[in-house]
């Protein structure tokens, strides 16, 4: 185990987003708060979810989770594509780091960014709405697993993409639709039956629903099913990503 090598890569990835914090942390917090402002003003007084929860309060966990996963994805994917396009990825590939060390360093740093931005949104929203926490453990668990999942997906996208527009395609045609159709802005019970069924095939739905359960103790489906679904999906992606790294797919050629 090259512990210092792992830690160095992890630290380098943290520095990479810390040095441009305005773009990587503050801007996404502001953007998400704008979503909150617009949606809560437009719908806050008219919509009640789960029979008792004010829409603005319902919205905040969804937005926090959306921010966490978007930024976790952005960190790994942008770091890899930038390094590939600029060519400086060779320095990492020349290092005596195992595939698992590479994977963990990238994913852990991306999780830190996702969770930092998510926490920022949560803290900024708190003064404006009363938000209970039913199960802190569920909140933390879903935040960790969700950020790890999207960080891993970001690695796959960063490894696969050879150009910035391919990465943008992955982000706009895969990640964004899955996020927007996952229940960030609504409960799936408000959807027609067919869309409720379709939502259950969207792994992002389980992340959002389980995370929201942590706050309200109410969810569209049993949170144990949600965590199992997210964990299985994450395990599949980990095996796939480490396999790509081991084969050197689009990295060592």
């Amino acid at each position: 185990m090259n512990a210092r090598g792992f830690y160095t890569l992890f630290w380098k990835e943290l520095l990479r987003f810390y040095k441009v914090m305005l773009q990587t942390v503050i801007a996404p917090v502001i953007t998400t708060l704008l979503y909150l402002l617009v949606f809560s003003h437009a719908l806050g007084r008219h919509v009640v979810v789960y029979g008792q929860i004010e829409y603005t309060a319902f919205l905040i966990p969804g937005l926090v989770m959306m921010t966490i996963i978007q930024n976790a994805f952005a960190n790994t994917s942008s770091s890899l594509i930038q390094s590939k396009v600029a060519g400086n990825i060779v320095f990492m590939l020349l290092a005596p780091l195992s595939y698992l060390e590479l994977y963990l360093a990238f994913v852990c740093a991306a999780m830190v960014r996702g969770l930092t931005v998510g926490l920022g949104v949560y803290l900024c929203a708190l003064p404006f709405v009363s938000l209970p926490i039913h199960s802190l453990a569920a909140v933390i668990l879903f935040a960790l697993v969700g950020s790890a999942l999207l960080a891993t997906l970001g690695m796959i996208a960063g490894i696969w993409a050879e150009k910035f527009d391919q990465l943008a395609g992955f982000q706009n045609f895969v990640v964004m639709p899955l996020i927007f159709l996952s229940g960030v802005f609504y409960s799936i019970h408000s959807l027609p039956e067919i869309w409720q069924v379709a939502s259950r095939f969207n792994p992002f739905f389980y992340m959002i629903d389980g995370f929201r359960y942590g706050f309200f103790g109410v969810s569209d489906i049993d949170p144990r099913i949600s965590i199992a679904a997210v964990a299985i999906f994450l395990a599949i992606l980990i095996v796939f990503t480490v396999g790509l790294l081991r084969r050197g797919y689009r990295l060592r050629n």
Partner: protein
Amino acid sequence: MTLSTDMTDAVNVSNVSKRYGTVHALNDVNLTIARGEFFGLLGPNGAGKSTLINIIAGLTLTDSGNVGVMGYDVVDDYREARRRLGLVPQELVFDAFFTVREVLKIQAGYFGLGRENDDWIDELLAELMLTDKADSNMRALSGGMKRRVLIAQALVHKPDVVVLDEPTAGVDVEVRRLLWRFIRRLHGDGHTVILTTHYLEEAEALCDRIAILNHGTVIALDTKQGLLDSDIGKMVTVRIVSDHPVTHVPDSIADKVRNINGNTMTLEIRRDKDSISDVLGTLTRSGIRINDLHTERADLEDVFLQLAYRNAR
């Protein structure tokens, strides 16, 4: 730990082939580089030099064959192999987020080295005349400075084998001299140095042994002196200028004449078999008066061009 190759070799390339689609980048390449050797890898563009370098460094995977660095297989024992190798890439690649010192500390960290390596980083910065740029962002450096940072990055973990892929491409004369001096010092300190270059004078000045690659195949592998002593290397070009247009040549030296253009005649003779004074005597006795004489020994460039041209045919 599996020791896959001969421990006495710095680099061992065994039956390595690599294809990109229908193009054979490397075709069953075999090569052994001894410890402490200064080895040159020459070849025209697209010959497969960079592919071979990348395979040795573990940046590219082979289709078949094995590569060992200091006795460790670059795939099976990649950690040990990579610890013993430093690569200076051909392109001026850098991470725009960091300063020179940060880049070097990060690279050292990848190899498991922390603060205990800071003195060596300072020494590298001083040797490569980068001390005053240590806290500058990589973007702010000139091309020559970026090249020197790449060399420092390759050496930050004190590797046994240093691979320099065209290290002096695009740098000015002053930086080239600095790099030559530095590379010679590395070799003097016991590092095995592998150099690819387009500048044949560079290979001639620095390398002990040279491989010439063309179309993914090693077409020559010998010591520098061995190549210069080859049939091609033994050729001497003699150009004479007569006071009259040259209209006839004695039969005994007709096979040595390459070109006649008015008063100027060019001959090619073998250093080991022919005598310049005998040839000149024959010309003089035949009535050709020599006003001017110019001789030129074949250099590595002639050997390289002849071999590459032969191979291309």
